[in-house]
């Protein structure tokens, strides 16, 4: 019984952490350009074409 008292808050807390993480990523625009991120990784930031 005492185990439950620890485990349930931990379980709910972890779930909440995930939910907060999702809200944060939604708000910070992580989902705005799903295709762009995959392509932008290929851009060489310090390449010679950059000025």
């Amino acid at each position, binding site marked *: *019984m005492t185990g*439950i008292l620890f485990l*349930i808050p931990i*379980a*709910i807390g972890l*779930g*909440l952490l*995930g*939910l907060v993480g*999702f*809200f944060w990523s*939604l708000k910070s625009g992580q989902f*705005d*350009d*799903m*295709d*762009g991120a995959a*392509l932008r990784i290929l851009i060489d930031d310090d390449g010679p074409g950059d*000025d």
Partner: protein
Amino acid sequence: MASGIAAARVNFTAKRVSISHLPETTIPEIQRAIAKLGFESQPIADNLVAPTGEDSRELLKAMAVSGFAMMNIMLLSVSVWSGAEGGTRDLFHWISALIALPTIAYSGRPFFRSAWAALRHGRTNMDVPISIGVTLATALSLFETFTGGAHAYFDGAVMLLFFLLTGRWLDSVMRDRARDGVTALLKNRAAGALVITTDGSSEWLASDKLKTDMVMLVAAGERLAADGEIVKGASRFDLSLLTGESAPAAMAIGDTVHAGTLNLDGPVEVRITAAGATTALADIARLMEDAAQSKSRYVRVADRAARYYAPAVHTLALSSFVGWMLMGAGWHQSLLIAVAVLIITCPCALGLAVPAAQIVAAGVLMKKGILVKDGSALERLAEVDRALFDKTGTLTMGQPEPVNLGELSAEQKSVALALARASRHPLSQGLRRALEREGVKAVALDHLEEIPGEGVKALWGLQEVRLGRTDAGEAGASLGVSLDVGDASATVLRFEDAMRPAAEATIEQLAKLGIESSIASGDRAEAVAPVARALGLTAQTGMQPQDKLDTIARLASGGQKVLMIGDGLNDGPALAAGYASLAPASASDAGQNAADAVFLGDSLAPVAQAVEVARATQRIVRQNFALAIGYNVIAVPLAIMGLVTPLIAALAMSGSSLIVVGNAIRLKAITK
């Protein structure tokens, strides 16, 4: 990077680039800079940049919260169902209540709001039984929790919200995706004009900054941004987008030209007589607004079902409550049973049945190159039984194609391609496209030079070559260009507005689907006749936008549901008034805005495909309704008999939802 540009970032999903630039950098300069990189670009009008997807985002948040809550409550419920008793059960109920109450308050808002709006107007919709069911179930579960009772429905109530929010969110995502797609297509062709200022220099102004009495310089191949009168130069104008007429009209000093028409030949100076809201375009826009109102009266399938569903559900729940009371069961048990009935009958499957099928259909259609704007458009597309086609730009390509390329030698073709590539003139572009399709390779030319209004000339080795205007007689609707190579006699290339590929097959396919087609064109009878003959259709010609509206109204009063397919500005009102409407991606902005769906590519085949997929979707939706009703027929008697525990309710709800979603996914296989 071009000077004046501070930053640029591409959004690949929306196919858009946002650029921060200095105020003195003009849009044409930016477009040129992008063109240098090898990309074509079009400015997006201000009113289209409005952020989309706000609704979806809110729904997604609500869905995430209810999903999180559902999983945690379910975890606790499973232990209650598997035999937790006494203090443990009460503790679990209390924790469930703590999670469920804020969740329902947050995630239930979309339903409560819509139900309240409906009730206030004395109507009822799908959200009314949902709201009542969720509220009653929560209130009763709370009572159970306080009194240490055995059955709490927190899991059922939250699960219901989660499934329904999933349905709502799918519906909303579908609308956003299509709207983004259409916005990306809107080319906003004449977003402004080059205006000659008093000191003789020229300045590029956006179309909303244009004023009367300004003089704008319109180059060949440009669309006019305002109505005006030609004060210098002469040219021919393509009016097809405005009137549907395919033959270009020759205009000279003193003639009136309208916004939206395309200057074909040479540069002209136009003194603006009307700009912005006072142009001939604005009249069409007003007609369109009026016509669009008839469409908003359409009631979605799900709401139609809810009209019968909601009263039935409430009667059932109420009568089981009264029934058990009369049998002496006590108000507590009677209420428990009534809530079980409400939870079981809540339109969980119904709420998912329609959006799940429609989002799958929208995905299928998008792969075929058809962007449907929303679910209601799909429903209306499925019901049409009459098709009206515009001619110019819809049945035909709306752009000139050379018809006698066969008369050219391989050598002439290579020279012609090299010359045509150098010009933005619509005829050159048409010639270039046709030659590139044949796989012709261009020769290398020297001293390439374009003379506005005359043509392109160059040196090919030692011979002078020229592609340009011809003085030879032009018959009917066809345009001509002469190609001179050296001293040999000139060849005259004739251009015509070619029929879209698969036009004939599409008309046949529509007939097979029981849809009769005809042509409603603004063009002259002589120009429409060959197309009508080739397709075996009857045609009305010389129609004004108002005439097209009247035709649709007449057909509609005869009980027919008209599918309007058109592209021009002149089709805008008709597209808005049609029971359903389609526009090609080459259509005017107004046309694309007014249409329910836009199809990409040259072929007309998507018209029939859209109707086919829409009908298949409607069949799936009906099957899903049948499944949901069948589930209720089995589950409701059990609930009324008092046999439904929270465990059975949870199983029944998720089971029926999975079945309708699975059935919706079947659409992918059917419509392949």
